């Protein structure tokens, strides 16, 4: 019988993404695929084809515990999949994304200079200067890369933590992309998230 519809090799994508970004931060831009593709499929297809078949991150979280026995497999606390927490986390994510855009704009307008660091979990600043040689692209494009890579890496870390603590794909309960696409699909199908 089928497993993951033959797409199960996509778990390689997040690993490749973080590796590429480790050596050259500009690859961070590729992560926009993981933001735009789910939205395009939801808006135009009215489906969660991304989550259900294409998401490398979801597949990685499903696969790792199978191979490494690194998840307790316990049900997550109920609030983690509640609309309140999901929308709260989505708001947080959007605020963080806006702050990346703002930083990018500040560098673009010359109000601030490029900072070659990755910020982990919105707290720890990690030097990452080896991954970029100044002047390769306009500074604002590099600034966006550092910011967006930080967001991707931090959310992946959060995902790994809840994968270990609870069930493998617990991250998917409050993943901002998952929430956004479900809201869009529900709107298109004429249901709101509470009905």
């Amino acid at each position: 019988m089928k497993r993951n519809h033959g797409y199960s090799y996509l778990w390689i994508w997040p690993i490749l993404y973080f590796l590429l970004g480790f050596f050259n931060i500009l690859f961070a831009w590729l992560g926009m695929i993981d933001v735009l593709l789910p939205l395009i499929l939801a808006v135009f297809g009215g489906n969660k084809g991304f989550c259900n078949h294409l998401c490398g991150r979801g597949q990685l979280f499903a696969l790792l515990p199978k191979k490494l026995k690194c998840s307790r497999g316990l049900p997550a606390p109920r609030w983690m999949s509640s609309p309140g927490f999901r929308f709260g986390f989505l708001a947080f994510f959007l605020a963080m994304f806006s702050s990346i855009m703002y930083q990018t704009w500040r560098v673009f307008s010359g109000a601030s200079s490029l900072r070659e660091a990755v910020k982990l979990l919105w707290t720890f600043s990690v030097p990452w200067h080896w991954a970029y040689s100044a002047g390769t692209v306009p500074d604002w494009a590099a600034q966006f890369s550092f910011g967006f890579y930080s967001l991707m890496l931090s959310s992946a870390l959060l995902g790994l933590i809840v994968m270990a603590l609870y069930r493998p794909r617990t991250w998917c309960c409050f993943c901002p992309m998952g929430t956004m696409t479900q809201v869009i699909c529900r709107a298109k199908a004429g249901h709101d998230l509470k009905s």
Partner: protein
Amino acid sequence: MASKRYALPDRKRCVSCGACAGECPRNALSIWRGCYAVVDKTACVGCGICQRTCPANCIVLIPREDPQ
């Protein structure tokens, strides 16, 4: 032979991630228009894999009302 129980996802709590559908050995689960998981009662064998997989823990196994 029909199983005694089948899986029933809670539509209100489902986050439509598709984790259950990816694990079901009978391909009995699908995500209805990106909104929530639905089960094909006739295909489900009540193994409970989806119930143990669901990150929102929103699937229950319920007895079949009438034996088929």
